[in-house]
């Protein structure tokens, strides 16, 4: 079937393309969506392999170099080298770059121990220097002499995954509840919709922080991580359920639903197999566009000191550290790097989401 004899099939007749193939070909025409997609692939791969890509561990403190400025590797002959930095005598946080004395930047070096993908114990890092006294701080160091670039990567594991886990939770809950609400109607629908209204009528951050306050402030970072996801999903599912309910109301009148019911399928199976799959194109677009909400939720909670705790790294926590002292930030602008990372990530999600929306919109 897939490969008919050339003589039998006229060249103009092609097998009809499936909706997904159509969707994909429309998406590929939008360059900006692909840019967003590629950016996200890079960001998420870096987060996945953070321990390997980062030259140092997130806790490692370089006591000789607080607020060290970023260093840029350059070519010396055929080798990438970084200048050695020497603290200036008598002046705090000032370093002299010795371009005449360089250390080579090496790839696949051994350094701090970490677990690759959370499983394999290893010391292998993508790049770094062999000299213990002359480290390479690509994005400088913070107030404790920790490498900003490494913390950014380790932090991205938290900040970026919160978005994915969050939408997975929100959307499965929103779709299921919305589907049930729309399918059954009556008092079930009424009750669920009133609950949604209640949740949606409180301005988001007020509810988020009240929910956060019901747990002790000094939880471990793992627990806070789970807590943030649950809180953000608890608020997010309501608007999702409302939209899905609206779609279900019209979908349940379709003939294939009637047919499925006549065949004696259970209600849950009809909702899961026949109704909800028809909302997927909307759901995928909405999911992509709402990932930033979760990422920013973590940033805000960590910024307000009720999120991820030290010594773990997350983008919100790093921003909070950066802004704890204005003079520092003015002198050491590289501490804003997590802000740039947040911006790029959100931009990439918006690019991709916008392209997905255009591609899913068959009317245009």
């Amino acid at each position, binding site marked *: 079937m897939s490969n008919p004899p050339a003589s039998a099939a006229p060249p103009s007749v092609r097998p009809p393309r499936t909706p997904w193939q159509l969707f994909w070909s429309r998406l590929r025409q939008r360059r900006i969506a692909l840019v967003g997609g590629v950016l996200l692939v890079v960001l998420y791969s870096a987060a996945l392999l953070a321990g390997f890509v980062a030259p140092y561990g997130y806790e490692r403190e370089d006591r000789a170099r607080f607020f060290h400025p970023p260093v840029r590797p350059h070519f010396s002959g055929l080798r990438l080298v970084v200048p050695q930095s020497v603290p200036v005598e008598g002046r705090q946080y000032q370093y002299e770059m010795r371009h005449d004395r360089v250390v080579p930047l090496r790839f696949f070096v051994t350094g701090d121990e970490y677990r690759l993908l959370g499983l394999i114990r290893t010391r292998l890092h993508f790049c770094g220097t062999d000299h213990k006294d002359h480290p390479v701080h690509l994005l400088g160091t913070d107030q404790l002499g920790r490498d900003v670039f490494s913390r950014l990567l380790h932090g991205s594991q938290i900040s970026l995954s919160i978005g994915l886990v969050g939408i997975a939770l929100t959307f499965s809950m929103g779709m299921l509840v919305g589907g049930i609400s729309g399918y059954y109607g009556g008092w079930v629908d009424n009750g669920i919709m009133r609950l949604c209204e209640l949740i949606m009528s409180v*301005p988001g951050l007020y509810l988020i*922080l*009240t929910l956060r306050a*019901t747990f002790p402030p000094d939880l471990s970072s793992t627990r806070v991580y789970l807590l943030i996801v649950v809180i953000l999903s608890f608020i997010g599912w309501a608007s999702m359920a409302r939209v899905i309910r609206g779609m279900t109301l019209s979908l349940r009148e379709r003939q294939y639903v009637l047919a499925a019911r006549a065949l004696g399928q259970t209600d849950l199976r009809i909702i899961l197999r026949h109704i909800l799959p028809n909302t997927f194109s909307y759901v995928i677009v909405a999911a992509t566009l709402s990932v930033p909400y979760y990422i920013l939720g973590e*940033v805000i909670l960590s910024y307000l000191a009720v999120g991820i705790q030290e010594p773990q790294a997350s983008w919100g926590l790093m921003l909070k550290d950066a802004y704890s002292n204005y003079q520092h930030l*003015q002198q050491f602008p590289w501490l804003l790097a997590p*802000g740039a990372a947040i911006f790029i990530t959100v*931009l990439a999600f918006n690019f991709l989401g916008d392209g997905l929306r255009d591609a899913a919109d068959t009317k245009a």
Partner: protein
Amino acid sequence: MRSGGAVSMEKARVFWLANAAWILPVWGGRDMGTYLLHRLFHMVPILVGVSLLTFVLMSLTPGDYYSKLENNPQITREKLEQLRAKAHLDKPWHVRYGYWMSDALRGDLGYSLEYKIPVTELILMRLWNTFLLALTALLIAWLVALPLGIWAAVRKDSWVDRGCAMVAFLGLSIPEILLGLIALLFAYATGWFPVSGVESNRYIGVDTWNAPRLLDRAHHLILPALVLAASSLAGIMRQMRSNLLDTLRADYVTAARARGLGEGWVVGKHALRNAINPLLTIFGYSLAGLLSGAFIVENIFSWPGLGRLTLEALTSQDYRLVVATVVMATALLMVGNFIADILLAWSDPRIRLRE
């Protein structure tokens, strides 16, 4: 020229009347007044629900306002019990809620445990600041976004349109928290803007209001309001553009053009009026965004508003203050949505007849 417009208006009116006629007997010919009353009554159960939800959440919080005094050797256990009893903290939450509700129904939201003054007084002070911030941001956002959106739609696919699209993308993607911090850094670096509070320190405790003081307040307001306006601006601009593009494609616009009307007249009188309508819906949404955004901006710029008050109350576990601020923020949002509904019902008869 004018007669053309009048005919189309008249036609539209007849069309709506004809379409609405069958609904009238069902709904007993609901007019604007009953519609508004209906909407207003709808708010009451939600406000009660929100207060209940906040109460339950606050009671789940480990410890209470007086927990921090437990380690204080100067305060005896008996004294602590007395204090707790006075604040109804020794009773289960539903009893406490009963006390709170019966007081609240008489318009008394109780005393703040932290500030020792009535919660209502405290909130009114802060509410005004948040309201001022949100309103200024709203004005900035709409006054900038509408002309830009119209400009981008009229000059579709030109460099103006592309530029606006790019700016909108950046505006939508830059989180308020980051923009606020950058603005703060900017204020510090240049010294052009104050970095915190609603007014300079020299006005603290001063009751007189004069021109320099108002100017000082405005000076403090500019930067937070701009930051807050930036994110909703982009959304409104894109919405305005796409609405206008939709109406510009409509048959009546083609007809108007065919009658030889000037482009300015076509856009201003025929397309724009119809394009504004859907924007009223996002007015409500943008208000929700502004309130949540104000929470962040208030915390960055140390702006003594409702959001900051809520955070302080949550940290000190001042339960009456928490409940009151959350309910007040909800009420603010609902009133905003209510105004949007009124505008929408006023401009589009279909809505008030169907609901």
